[in-house]
């Protein structure tokens, strides 16, 4: 007690700077100890979660594989399959188990094709995982919505078209991106119809992602891109110009010539570039005095 009193007296008598430094050191020590303890707690929690997911994975993996191999040539589900579906349906009421099942199914969807991938999709429907994804679509947290869209795309769920389409003009760019990829991935060129209603800008990166999805399609028959060349959204016009060039849309000649008068400089430049590529028109650097708008970009002459 005497020692403590001595310390308190020393602290009271010490100059202000010493008192301040002492308090600061005490606060820092408390902060460091609390951080170490919280990190330990988080790490143990994550370890427990990982163990739990691994346990569920080991539990469900053989069950899912048994489901995949117990089908017959008819499209109807066999008794074994029905009993496995019932078992999974009951189990996935818990979030961790559901996460494990989705992880296993997603891993398989990326690796197998044909009848087996159709069978996985049936399982996704029958176990009600699709309903959980729809609930997550309606979440107020954007990252949950975004993940739900990715999941629906991976399992090729077309029934949710209308629900997903509502996010075309979502305030978060990540949700918009996933919506656009979902539509193109599942509905091919028809999926591009979202461009009709797109009010937000389509970034260069998103345009490339969409083009990549389109170029991977087996059927390269493109629809009518004329409305997008006349869109009020400049990024849509730029994307349509890319489509015009890649898919050799010679019939868009009139629209391309019109686009030389577009108020946006980038659009005018791209239109001239596409005209050059498709029709061999040459870009002339000499500005045309009659047209002030095109002064800096020059004009086109037919070679």
């Amino acid at each position, binding site marked *: 007690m005497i020692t403590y009193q001595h310390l308190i007296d020393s602290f009271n008598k010490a100059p202000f700077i010493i008192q301040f430094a002492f308090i600061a050191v005490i606060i820092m020590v408390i902060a460091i100890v609390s951080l170490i303890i919280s990190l330990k707690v988080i790490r143990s929690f994550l370890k427990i979660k990982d163990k739990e997911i691994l346990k569920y*994975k080991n539990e469900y*993996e*053989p069950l*899912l*594989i048994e489901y*995949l*191999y117990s089908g017959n040539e008819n499209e109807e589900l066999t008794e074994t399959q029905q009993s496995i579906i019932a078992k999974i349906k009951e189990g996935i009421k818990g979030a961790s188990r559901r996460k494990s099942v989705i992880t*296993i199914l997603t*891993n*398989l*969807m*990326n*690796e*197998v*094709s*044909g*009848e*087996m*991938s159709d069978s996985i999709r049936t399982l996704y429907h029958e176990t009600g995982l699709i309903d959980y994804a729809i609930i997550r679509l309606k979440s107020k947290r954007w990252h949950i919505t975004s993940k739900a869209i990715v999941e629906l795309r991976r399992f090729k769920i077309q029934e949710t078209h209308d629900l997903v389409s509502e996010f075309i003009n979502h305030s978060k760019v990540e949700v918009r991106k996933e919506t656009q990829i979902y539509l193109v991935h599942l509905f091919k060129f028809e999926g591009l119809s979202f461009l009709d209603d797109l009010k937000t800008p389509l970034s260069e990166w998103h345009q490339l992602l969409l083009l990549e999805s389109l170029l*991977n399609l087996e059927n390269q028959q493109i629809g009518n891109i004329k409305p997008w060349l006349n869109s009020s959204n400049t990024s849509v016009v730029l994307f349509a110009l890319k489509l015009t060039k890649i898919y050799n849309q010679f019939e868009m000649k009139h629209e391309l010539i019109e686009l030389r008068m577009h108020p946006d400089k980038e659009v005018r430049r791209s239109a001239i570039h596409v005209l050059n590529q498709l029709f061999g028109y040459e870009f002339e650097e000499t500005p045309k005095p009659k047209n002030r708008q095109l002064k800096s970009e020059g004009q086109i002459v037919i070679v």
Partner: protein
Amino acid sequence: MQRHKIVLAEDNSTLSLLLKYRLEKEGFELLIAADGKEAVELVEHHDPDLVLTDIMMPFYSGLEVISHIRNKLKKETPVIIFSSAGQEEMVLKAFSLGASDFMTKPFSPNELVIRVKRLFS
């Protein structure tokens, strides 16, 4: 009758299990490796009749597995590699190292069985 021994090197445990069931049903004996290192050990210790390997794996890649079989062990064991879209250059490298066949993911397990059977016929 002796069953053909196959080493399957694949880091996706679900796919490994799926292919194991399918190929065992067809009468093959399957040895599973979760990465390239395990695959090399299995090949060294069990002298399989066929190796099925993914290209991208932890520790040793599929290319290193083929190189080990051909250059270090000096074996002519057939090797089928699993590649993904965009790994065309890796597939070419695998063929130059001595791969026998390849399959691009996603693939049909039934097609794999046909290719494996063809190799043993």
